[in-house]
């Protein structure tokens, strides 16, 4: 109410809508991944909004990368745990 500009949530939805034909052309399994990328961006709407960027989708892409990095760190930790005692170790 009373806002002049669209919110970040609206802007992400608008971008998603603009890419609808791109998404449609993807395989279903890839569509799921793409949806996950937008879900990742939506987890950081507060941070994206706080950048005051003219093009907030740049910050949204950063949020997607952040989620990927987080997941890599998680998987790395789990692999380390699985390899514990085997002598194998992931290279940084």
């Amino acid at each position, binding site marked *: *109410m*009373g*806002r*002049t*500009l669209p*919110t970040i949530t609206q802007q992400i939805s608008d971008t998603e809508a603009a890419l609808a034909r791109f998404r449609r052309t993807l395989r279903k399994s890839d569509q799921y*991944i793409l*949806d*996950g*990328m937008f*879900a*990742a961006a*939506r*987890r*950081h*709407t*507060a941070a994206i*909004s*706080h950048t*005051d*960027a*003219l093009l907030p989708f740049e910050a949204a892409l950063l949020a997607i990368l952040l*989620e990927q990095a*987080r*997941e890599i*760190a*998680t*998987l790395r*930790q*789990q692999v380390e745990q699985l390899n514990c005692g085997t002598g194998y170790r992931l290279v940084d």
Partner: protein
Amino acid sequence: MEQATGWLIDLYPDENGLVLWLLCDDGRRLPARMSFPVTFHAAGDFDQLRQAWRFLQEKGLLLARATRCDLFSGEREVLSATLSSPGALPGLFASLSRQFPGLDYYDADVPLPLRFAARTGVGLLSRCRADLAGNRISRIEALDTPWEVEPQPIPLRILELGPDVNPVLRPPARLRIRYGRVDYSLGLEPLRALEVALGALLRQFDPDLILSEYGDTWLFPKLKEWGLGLNPNRDPDREVLTRRADSYFAYGQVVYRGAQTHLYGRWHIDRRNAMLYGEYGLEGVLEQARVTGLGVQEMARKSPGAGITAMQMLTALRTGVLVPVVKQQAESEKTLAGLIAADKGGMIYQPLIGVHKDVAQIDFTSMYPSIMVNFNISPETTGKAGLPDGLVPQTLRPLLGKRLALKKILGELHPRDCRVKALKGRAAALKWLLVVCFGYLGYKNARFGKIESHEAVTSLSRELLLQAKEAAEELGFVVLHMYVDCLFVQQPGYRQAADFNPLLSAIAGKTGIHIALDGVYRWVVFLPSRRDARIPVPNRYFGVFQDGEIKYRGIEARRHDTPVWVVQTQLAVLEYLAQAATLEQAQAYLPKAGGIVEQAKRNLKAGRVPVEDLLVTQRLSREVAGYKSPSPAARAAKQLQEAGKTVAPGQTMRFIYTRGVPGVWAYGCGALDLRVVDAGMYIKLLDRAVQTVLEPFTPTATSAVCGTHAPLLFTGAARQAANTICKS
């Protein structure tokens, strides 16, 4: 010269001044008169002002040139016009402003009780002492202020009355009346007998307040329609004041306000037509009437926004600031970058989806009003340093102080103390005023609003919330969620209220705003979006505090359109889960929770659920004819219209889902054949509601949130595990 001491309960204009009603300490209800000239001002183009001067001179007003203070533009030359009869001002001003629309007008539409309070210090519901010569008041003084935390209660005589049945459903046959502990029942036929009996009861009890059910929308209009000679006013020379029903657009929806009946010398409140009466009751209405100065009948039917505007007008009148009739301030020019930086609301995080245990919720106390007061946010002070308190902080400071004082008293009382209900009602009434005061800073029609001051408040709130987050993280807490003025934090081993005291102190020290622990949840569930389970939703959660109290937001039980049967079953399941002492034990409660749901379905199929519990309530957003594909509410409205009833946009429609066409049965539209109730539809609604509360506890979901499940791309598991990594 006689002196009278008591409460001022009513005030309205007559031909020569004011009529005041005093509820005296000796029990008298005393009408008195007082001369009360009123002044308004006009400013603008000199030629037009000169013509306006002549116009007013012909009407016999006392005119003068003066310099007065406009909040936004500073000192201004104005034409001041004073008339001795305040009741004549609305008509006079209407013709003046029609004739000279280009002038700026001030103080022309200020409610009379506010003018009186500003000049004498005596507001409606104030205790006061009056010097009387005959029935004329020569002097009046206040004996208290609206800011007394525990004011002396007014010994009101309250008469309750209402029909024996909801008039929407069928024509009532009797009028039920209660005075004290005595009940009366009057037949509506014959009308002459009703007139005599009701008149006798009003004379016998002489109530100060008629507290009715459907008084605005049925009883008083009917009394008029029936042509009864009964005058329900205390002032016998007056007729009741009737205001027509209307529909208007506010807060993103169409709102319907029923017709109103106001009385003179006593009050009338229709519980069914009173704004937020269910939220804070009569005590809350009296509290709002007292602090806003608007009076009980007005405040019961007006929004809190009207109350805040009244309070700002009062501050302006007292401090010599002009009250503009229309807002004159537009948004200041900004660059695009400036607009992007400023045009934002409060900080809303996306929570970590799933079930979390031992979580504390901490809230900033009245955050936005505190910011306005502490940082001197007011239209005329925003962006300027070193100024004294602006109009808005001056208005809010005592209001905020009173609410905090009431909350402090409430915190010290036992929950079963007999004072708790009234105090809660009063605190809630003040809370509503404080809630809307922020919105009114940015409201396009608010007389003392300016969007930049609105934006300054949200900007500061975001900064303060980030400072709170940083303070929590410095102390080792994981911030699960943040929502405008509250945080959900968690740290292994922290589960008692005292464990969070250092955090509260750290945040209060850092931000300068008081913050309090709302409670510690045994467990709390942040729900995902229905569209994609990987997307969190900010305000959709439920949880159980350590004392077993349930808190839920955004789920079906909070929605106004959910049938009572669905609400009750969803809450029964939640309450059952709340019996588990820990999150781990809650798993064992799942099978029996399913049993509660099955029993509810059996009750529905066997016709053991009352029809009222299946009613769906939805608002009609436009005229019935305006729907291209009618919603269930529109179909219900159409049925009512066909049955000869009036419906208007903004009205709430109550209906039952039925099988076949038109798929609904409008409440109040004849008798319902129970066999046509669409049980399948209700079971679908229930399953959806139960799924909301049970699904997070299913093994897959639980293991995912506990971080032990193999991560899918972007699942809660990954986030949770990553949090663990960050902490280690």
